[in-house]
């Protein structure tokens, strides 16, 4: 709702904010809690431009500079659940296996089954953990195969954060290869697979639909 406030409404609301406090929220709803002015808690109607001496309600300070395409592209490498941002490149399970052995096994263990503490296993489809019974049994081990909902974001994570000490050092094809290896080791794709953007987008993780939105709302009762 808040983001749907029209700019005209913002100006109107801001016009009531020209008190010395400037961020004063004078709305009736806000005054319902007399102990502490509600304006101190939220900024939904706070207009920085209405601060005394500022450019005036609804205006901008126009600080900062326009972000060029290249500046944005430098950091904008995220790959979301749909994988629409996946870059060119490709890598096979076999290539990923070799890369894993040389770059990853020292921390995550041979075959991804667990390495130097505190690194937990990446790989494992222990039958006792199938069925997503993690709340019932605290001993079950979470792995990529049984507790990772989107294959595309495995690519995102490896690319942005791994290897731990040299993040950003992998080519996109190497990231595809490592993604392929880890998915194959977790019995999600076949050992003969080569992944590129289209192939990775098509991978469906086994327990994707077990991740649900937060239903806690406050108030009495435990959820």
């Amino acid at each position, binding site marked *: *709702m*808040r*983001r749907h406030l029209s700019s005209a409404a913002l100006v109107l609301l801001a016009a009531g904010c020209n008190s010395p406090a*400037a961020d004063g929220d004078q709305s009736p709803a806000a005054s319902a809690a007399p102990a*502490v002015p509600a304006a*101190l*808690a*939220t*900024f*939904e109607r*706070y*207009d*920085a431009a209405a*601060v005394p001496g500022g450019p005036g309600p609804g205006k901008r*300070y*126009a*600080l*900062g*500079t*326009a*972000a*060029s395409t290249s500046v*944005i592209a430098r*950091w*904008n490498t*995220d790959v*979301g*659940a749909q994988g629409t941002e996946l870059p060119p490149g490709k890598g096979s399970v076999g290539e990923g296996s070799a890369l894993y052995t040389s770059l990853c096994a020292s*921390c*995550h263990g041979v075959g991804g089954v667990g390495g130097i503490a*505190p*690194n*937990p296993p*990446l790989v494992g489809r222990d039958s006792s953990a199938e069925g*997503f*019974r*993690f*709340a*019932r*049994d*605290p001993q079950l081990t*979470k792995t990529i195969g049984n*507790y990772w909902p*989107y294959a595309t*974001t495995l690519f*995102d994570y490896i690319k*942005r*954060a791994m290897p*731990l000490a040299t*993040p950003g050092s992998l080519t996109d094809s190497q990231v595809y290869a490592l993604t392929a290896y880890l998915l194959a080791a977790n019995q999600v794709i076949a050992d003969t697979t080569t992944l590129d953007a289209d192939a990775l987008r098509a991978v469906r993780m086994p327990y994707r639909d*077990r*991740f*649900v*939105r*937060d239903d*806690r709302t*406050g*108030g*009495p009762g*435990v959820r």
Partner: protein
Amino acid sequence: MRVESNAPQGDGHHEGHNGDREDNLHGAPNDRSASEHAVAPDGLTDARGTSVSRRVLLTGAAGVAAGALVSVLPGAAVGQGGTSAGASTPPPAPSRVPADPGSMLGAPTSAQGMRAAAVNPARVPVGAVSGSSRSPLGELTGTITPSDLHFERHHAGVPALDAATHRLVIHGLVDRPMEFSVDDIRRLPQVSRTYFIECSGNGRAPFKSPKPETTAQAAAGMTSNTEWTGVPLATLFREVGVKREASWFLAEGADACHMTRSVPVEKGWEDAMVVWAQNGEPLRPAQGYPLRLLLPGWEGNINLKWLRRLELGTQPWMTRWETSVYTDPLLGDTARQFSFVIDAKSVITSPSFPDVIGTRGWRPVTGLAWSGRGRIARVEVSTDGGASWHDAELSGTPQPKAHVRFQYMWNWRGEEALLLSRATDETGQVQPTRTALIDVRGPGTDYHFNAIVGWRVQPDGAVFYHGTT
């Protein structure tokens, strides 16, 4: 008398897949051995008797590396901190207070202040690269956490960033993709707000496996409360012209894992801030220098440090930190995702392990309460394990999404007692028992441990953690 325990309680983070499981790490705690403590360094003796050395031997026998200094102040429960090997400041040399301090010239002024030599509260660093350290809640008073004692949690170390060259880029579904220097942001109208930040893994180990030798620091020290200064994110949203169709934004850090979390745009308009200062000075590196995203009342990790990029979009990105970790398994074989809000919670910080109450009579049972949904409305204290509850006094007016201190005066007559606290927030949420949480969420629940906890006081005055409510 206080004996600081650096027991590796491991309420840091459990993370599923990659190198972050420091709950089982032992953070090379204290160099000073238990046997040294029993000898009472400096030959100073505790004014209240002998229970201290018994307690020290007890903790030593439990295999807990502990540090202890002995107070020379008669009757004063002076907090004494053990110092971890990894702490930034070395433990001060044992101080000898002159017989008549006023008979000689005192120390000169100094460029940066120091704590009294006998006062040495310390975090307990766990994990070298992906690590955490907890605030020493049992040694702090009031509600403001000193900046150097604010808990830490990071996923790929603390980056060394230059505020002069650091940039915050905002792009995606905006009218004007913009790049802000730190100076640009400091030139906008600034606001200061006091908020807690709590790690959603706070208290994991004592929740899963309660042990009597658990300090308040180990039980709940991954919450801290400070004054933050910066700009409302709403101000930046207006500067860039966030489009109406934007419903989520991605926040990204400049640390080595380039941590990312998805945030509903509504939170950005409501009370989110981009902060550059804490408790009156620029952010410390471990707290996000030079820029941090502050999302009041929400789980610690999403208060993204070293903020370098915000991208506006229409759906969550499903990053590793909102899928494979920081999700909460539920009975029904699902996992709760985007469990942002911190539930109502409280903890008694004094008395607490390893205190030994040396004197019968009146004393405050005091602690902290907080809720991510707003103000704390009520804190009740029980001295009989929950058979009866009594309203505690809230110190000052509770602020939304901030720690409030409570106290209940207790006249201890030497009986066995079980001290508990129970918070209620302004939405009416009441802090549950551990049993109630497990009944609803299952024994494998993995974050958001807001169960009622407390302290068992023995007739000899020894205080032990009690987590099995």
